[in-house]
């Protein structure tokens, strides 16, 4: 397996408090890697550490470049798009402005235009609501907007923080179906954080299990799924 992102001894802090105690993991190039675990295990923290939203230590290598000394905006400019928890919608701006912000750092404005159309192919509902204020969208639509905004960066790595959160099962199914298509068609690797392990393991090729800031097990998604002990102890089904 070749990896697009590798973390070694990654620690992360909220103020003085260490929330991630030196984790090792790799994100598979071209694949979908899932980070699973209960509430408070450190899943969101791991994503925040990758995109420099919080203080971190240790090694973090993305396509041969070290990330640990970089600011969030520089991590984004290297091609890591983060769909944060709470979706990060610019609620007072229109849907179109939100999307344009996604492509803010890109210089190839002509390609951005065709990318808009491609994204509307995945999420036609956003095209209908293009001039609407983003804060008035439903939760599902805001999640679609957040994913689209991230894709417009033309990232090589997409970080997804609980895309299923607070959404109706039908909407969740739709979004995960589209995520699979995006992963296959757009050549973008995905690191996804989910509480809904079943859902994430369906999509993922690899998975890691976090428990209170430590990785307890990692491997192919199918192995994790098949491991009865792991399933009962951590995945709760």
């Amino acid at each position, binding site marked *: 397996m070749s990896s697009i992102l590798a973390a070694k001894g990654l620690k992360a802090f909220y103020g003085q408090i260490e929330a991630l105690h030196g984790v090792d993991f790799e994100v598979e190039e071209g694949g979908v890697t899932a980070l699973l675990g209960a509430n408070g295990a450190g899943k969101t923290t791991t994503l925040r550490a990758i*995109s420099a*939203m919080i203080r971190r230590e240790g090694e973090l290598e993305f396509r041969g470049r070290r990330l640990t000394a970089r*600011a*969030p*905006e520089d991590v*984004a*400019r290297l091609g890591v*798009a*983060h769909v*944060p928890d709470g979706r*990060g*919608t*610019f*609620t*007072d*701006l229109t849907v179109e*402005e939100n999307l*344009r*912000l*996604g492509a*803010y*750092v890109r210089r190839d404005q002509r390609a951005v235009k065709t990318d808009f159309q491609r994204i509307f192919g995945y999420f036609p509902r956003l095209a209908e609501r293009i001039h609407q204020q983003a804060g008035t969208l439903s939760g599902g639509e805001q999640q679609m907007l957040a994913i689209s*905004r991230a894709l417009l*960066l033309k990232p090589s790595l997409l970080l997804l923080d609980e895309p299923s959160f607070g959404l109706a099962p039908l909407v969740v199914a739709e979004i995960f179906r589209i995520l699979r298509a995006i992963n296959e068609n757009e050549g973008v690797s995905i690191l996804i954080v989910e509480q809904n392990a079943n859902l994430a393991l369906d999509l993922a090729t690899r998975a890691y299990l976090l428990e209170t800031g430590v990785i307890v097990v990692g491997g192919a998604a199918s192995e994790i799924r098949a491991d009865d002990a792991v399933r009962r102890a951590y995945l709760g089904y």
Partner: protein
Amino acid sequence: MVELLHQLASGLALGGVYAVTALALVMIFQATQLVNFAQGEMAMFSTYIAWYLMQNGWDYWQAFAATVAFSFVGGVVIERIVVRPFAHAPVLASVIVFIGLSFIFNALAGFFFGYSVQSFDTPFDGRPWFGNRFMSAHESGSVVVSLIVLALVFAFFRFTPLGLAMRAAAQNPASARLVGVRVGWMLALGWGLAAAIGAIAGMMAAPIVYLDPNMMGGILLYAFAGAVLGGIDNPWGAVFGGFTVGVAENLLGAYVVGDEVKLSVALVIIVGVLVVRPSGLFGRRIVARV
């Protein structure tokens, strides 16, 4: 009747100055939730620079352009050096910093340029425009300049990628960083812009109120009243409020309270709005879920 129209027109001229200053206040407020109490003194200091350049033989518009550019750079530098270290400090600390800044600029202006009142040139000399009897040429020109500044600022924020990035940075800094916006620089840029348009307001006001280190004190108060009236988080509201306060101040000063106490009109407006409708006419009520 002629007198009334005259007062109304003068009100509009100063109202334009208030509107521009109010817009500068709102720009900083939207990005930082803080009111820059040094906005007035920064503008006053900029106006002195223009005055100094013209004293040394510069043409008005050259001095105007140089002053706007200088103020922009000055605003950026102030944000980087003075404001930035207090980014995570309590509100009160920032307020003290702003008040300190305003004293510093006031003292610097006195130190460099003296405290005596100076007249300030206007580029809009001569006969009133369009033969109207109610507005001097400078007052007409001042309104036009204010409107142009307002239009340019709105166009910048509405239509340019940089303007969009600045709005995004003000609204949701964390999310803006994740799409690659350099939020820190956006704030500095906001300060630069606010200082630049404040300088224009100062240069439009100076021919009317004359130039001295305290010239912007009253203007800042009226601008603040305008911003509060329109809603301090709404640029359109601030502009509307600025013009409204300009007219109201002039009419009340002429017919109701007299010139001597008309500055209190601003305070009455501020207190009145905060009591009756704290979010202003067009501001957004902030509702917090707990």
